[in-house]
């Protein structure tokens, strides 16, 4: 039945392009049975007062892509309380379930058990091919009860960071007059789905290509979606032929130079070394800029070869040049986990962690915390905190705990103004996570807690009384400042071991 149904749809789609191209309204009509509205009610957290949360509602666009399957971007689906769907751009809302969400791929699959919702809807096929340069495209969305279709022009394929993660993969860039896009709106070329819009900056829309979604959905279906992998090393283009000559590479200049190979977060072996020249990855020649020729998308940055049909844990063959000789190595792709970064770029589906002791508030340093300085936090947040975001996690330093503020109480008199320091040791023990902090607080030194901060020019040590006075003070602070819990610590995915 399903087979037949899809075939019919195919035939129907095949007839359309001739007039659809000329008439945007007709294009819209073609998609109104596949495009739905998604409403997400969610908790937003205040990283300055991590015990606080407020409710927020956002509207997104979803695309029916299979039997009882709606795809959309992962954005705004984190910390959700309720997700609902609406078809036809108006009328009744139906409660939905999030079947699967991957913040690194920035994709999510939604469904609903309510059979009536699916009647009248038709799945679209993610069959779109790479558009040609300058191709005329349409961005489709529900707006005020009508299906809106806005024209867009294809600019390029480029390997870009995902919106919610540091994973890079091929994305499509469009130019359009549309405003406020980036909520999962389908991009179509006549009858074909080209991708869904992940973000808009100015006139430029960043689109997740159909091919990328297709591979991920297929892998998910086959039970193979192990998460995206990435290359955990740094390279520089080899545009300076003297550098290649110095490394004794004969022949035409080619390849890129490996410059930094940090510890792997999964403790796996690093098969590359600084000063290796990468000549070939997964069968593709790497040029001086670090690009390879993708059969589908043209010239792309080599980072894409860590996600092109590959998953975390997969092997990627590389031909390299080391010590004046060619060498073949097999690179096993590590899985990208936010918690593996020294300063996690994302914290999803969990309230912010904190620990209050005697009015001192400790938090892990994360990018969401830094974002309370605004969109230009990289310029406005305290320099030292921002600088940590460019540093690597190591076995000795898996994370940073900071004293974020002091809630004033007689107990902490003299420290009320202190804030913004990274913790080095507590009671003589190194502290790189709130769990370690909690453990260190169990072992006061001669009835005192001694907090040593990373050397700075403001304050390097705080001493508090430990024991009953401390517990009473913590309780008093919680009551006075209206805080329910003294600690909020979400267990972490295993980090560097």
């Amino acid at each position, binding site marked *: 039945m399903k087979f037949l149904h899809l075939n019919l749809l195919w035939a129907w789609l095949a007839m359309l392009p001739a007039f659809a191209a000329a008439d945007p309204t007709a294009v819209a009509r073609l998609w109104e049975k596949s495009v739905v509205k998604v409403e997400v009610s969610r908790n937003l957290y205040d990283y300055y007062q991590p015990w606080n949360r407020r409710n927020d509602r956002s509207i997104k666009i979803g695309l029916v892509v299979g039997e009882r399957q709606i795809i959309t971007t992962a954005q705004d689906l984190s910390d959700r309380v309720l997700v609902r769907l609406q078809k036809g751009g108006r009328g009744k809302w139906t409660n939905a379930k999030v079947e699967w969400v991957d913040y690194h791929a920035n994709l999510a699959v939604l469904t609903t058990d309510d059979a009536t919702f699916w009647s009248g809807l038709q799945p679209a096929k993610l069959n779109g091919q790479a558009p040609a340069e300058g191709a005329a495209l349409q961005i489709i969305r529900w707006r005020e009860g009508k299906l809106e279709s806005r024209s867009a022009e294809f600019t390029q394929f480029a390997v870009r960071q995902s919106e919610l993660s540091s994973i890079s993969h091929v994305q499509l860039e469009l130019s359009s007059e549309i405003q406020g896009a980036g909520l999962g709106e389908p991009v179509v070329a006549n009858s074909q789905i080209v991708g869904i819009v992940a973000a808009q900056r100015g006139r430029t829309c960043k689109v997740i290509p159909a091919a990328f979604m297709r591979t991920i959905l297929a892998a998910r279906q086959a039970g193979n979606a192990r998460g995206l992998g990435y290359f955990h090393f*740094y390279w*520089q*283009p080899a*545009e*300076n*032929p*003297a*550098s290649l*000559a*110095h490394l004794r590479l004969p022949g035409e200049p080619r390849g890129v*130079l490996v*410059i*930094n190979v940090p510890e792997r977060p999964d403790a796996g072996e690093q098969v590359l070394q*600084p000063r290796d020249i990468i000549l070939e990855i997964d069968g593709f020649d790497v040029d001086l800029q670090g690009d390879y020729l993708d059969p589908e998308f043209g010239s792309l940055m080599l980072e894409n070869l860590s996600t092109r049909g590959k998953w975390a844990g997969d092997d990627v063959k590389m031909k390299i040049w080391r010590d004046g000789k060619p060498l073949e190595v097999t690179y096993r792709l590590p899985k990208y986990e936010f918690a593996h970064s020294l300063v996690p770029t994302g914290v999803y589906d969990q309230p912010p962690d904190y620990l209050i002791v005697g009015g001192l508030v400790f938090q892990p340093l994360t990018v969401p915390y830094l974002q309370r300085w605004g969109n230009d936090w*990289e*310029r406005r947040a305290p*320099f*030292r905190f*921002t*600088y940590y975001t*460019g540093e690597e996690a190591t076995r000795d330093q898996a994370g940073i705990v900071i004293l974020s503020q002091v809630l004033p109480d007689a*107990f*902490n*008199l*003299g*420290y009320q103004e202190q804030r913004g320091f990274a913790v080095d040791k507590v009671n003589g023990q190194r502290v790189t996570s709130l769990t370690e902090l909690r453990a260190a607080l169990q072992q006061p030194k*001669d009835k*005192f807690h001694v907090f040593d901060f*990373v*050397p*700075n*020019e403001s*304050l*390097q*040590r*705080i*001493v*508090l*009384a430990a024991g009953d*006075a401390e517990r009473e003070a913590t309780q008093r602070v919680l009551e006075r400042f209206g805080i329910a819990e003294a600690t909020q610590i979400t267990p972490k995915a295993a980090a560097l071991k």
Partner: protein
Amino acid sequence: MFLKNAIVALLIISVINGFATEPERSAIQILTYRQEPDWSAPWRFDAVQRAGGSGFVIKGKRIMTNAHVVSWCRQIIVRKYQDAKPYLATVEYIGHDCDLALLTVADESFFDQLPALDFGELPKVRSTVVTYGYPAGGEEISYTRGVVSRIEMSAYSHIGNRRLLTVQTDAAINPGNSGGPVIQDDRVVGVAFQGIAGLENTGFFIPPPVIQRFLKDVEDKHYDGVPLVGVHFVPLQNPAYRTRLQLPDNNLGTRVDYLRPHSSASNVLQPDDVVLQVGEFPVASDGTILYQSNRVFCALGFQLGQSGDTVPLKIWRAGQEQNVNVKVAASDEDQPEGNQFDVKPRYFFFGGLVFTPLSRDYLGAATRDNTEGSGTDLTYELFYRSLEEPALVREEPVVLSSVLADAVNANFRVRGRVLVDRINGARIEKLADAIHAFETSTNTYDVIEFIKSHQFEALEHTEAVRANTKILKTYGVPRDRQL
């Protein structure tokens, strides 16, 4: 009896110093032509700027003014009150840390009929002062009257990394007032020197204790500088901390939080020592001393004397009071972290690559365009590394400031503003190391590695040597080094 003496004294002053009621005669207008180097292209100077300030005549045929008025000057012209004639002046002594300078005038007739102003004491808060000077907005002398608002330690913006005693007044102090005398009862009680943008009715002047110290400092014909102790003192008010240190709850004592790496006190003091008294001044638990009825930060207690002086301290360590002596000394060890003046930026040039030591001035010039993320590694190296990773500190971190394009270096991806880690494998601790690495190289390719990206570039050695003179000429760089 007392009153009578006072009257006599006043009469004597007015007899001896017949012009004392007219300090404006001794207030001097200073016109300068200054030229600063371009720290990111260290062989080059910026355009000549015309600027100005004020000064005043003191004993010994000298003009006192601010260091910042006469820094980087190519020519200094001084003019007397209601006298059109320009006189040429030169800097005799300059103290950048305390923002004071003394000028001499080649034509000594300048001082004819010019009474020298005498110095008074630190004025009282709420007392009235009058500033004399030649601020912007007109040509003639200007007077502003105000009260002394407060007296405390604050940052001297000229050098940028020193905090000294400062008096705040609500008398208007505007650009051009700098260096002018602040007068009370016909005596100089301050030298006007800075304001705070955005704050109204707040001008600042340098008070007599700082001025007198400067004058005494130069008595040996050499300016040493304000002595430093290199210790960070923090308040000690938390009851638990005091209990842990077995200190009575008597509101006394400031805690030693850390010592700078080259602190002259490092063999005497240690973290968690509590300083109870500096010299003659008991220290309160917020780190202040009572100085002439003003609560000011205790660092003042180390700054009143000269470099090399010994300051007796009463400290609390391991539950006991002890008396120790700390030698204080002027230090230029942290000079790169502050603004530098009247020096030629050092650099070395090889194959179009310009290497220069990292400094606050360089950083300011290199990040002036405020490119996102530019300079963060440099900022860390200059201001944080010595605190956090003292073992990795380099004597004089070297920056590849720019790459002047030539066929020999055209393929470099690194275009400058990066810290040099190694050249030909040798760790670069100072500019001399970079020079040595290139000049002794026998390699086909010189390899330069950078912090912290780990990027590297290779340069054909003989080609670079051959091209050097040509590139210097092309870009108008007068010589390949300035050391």
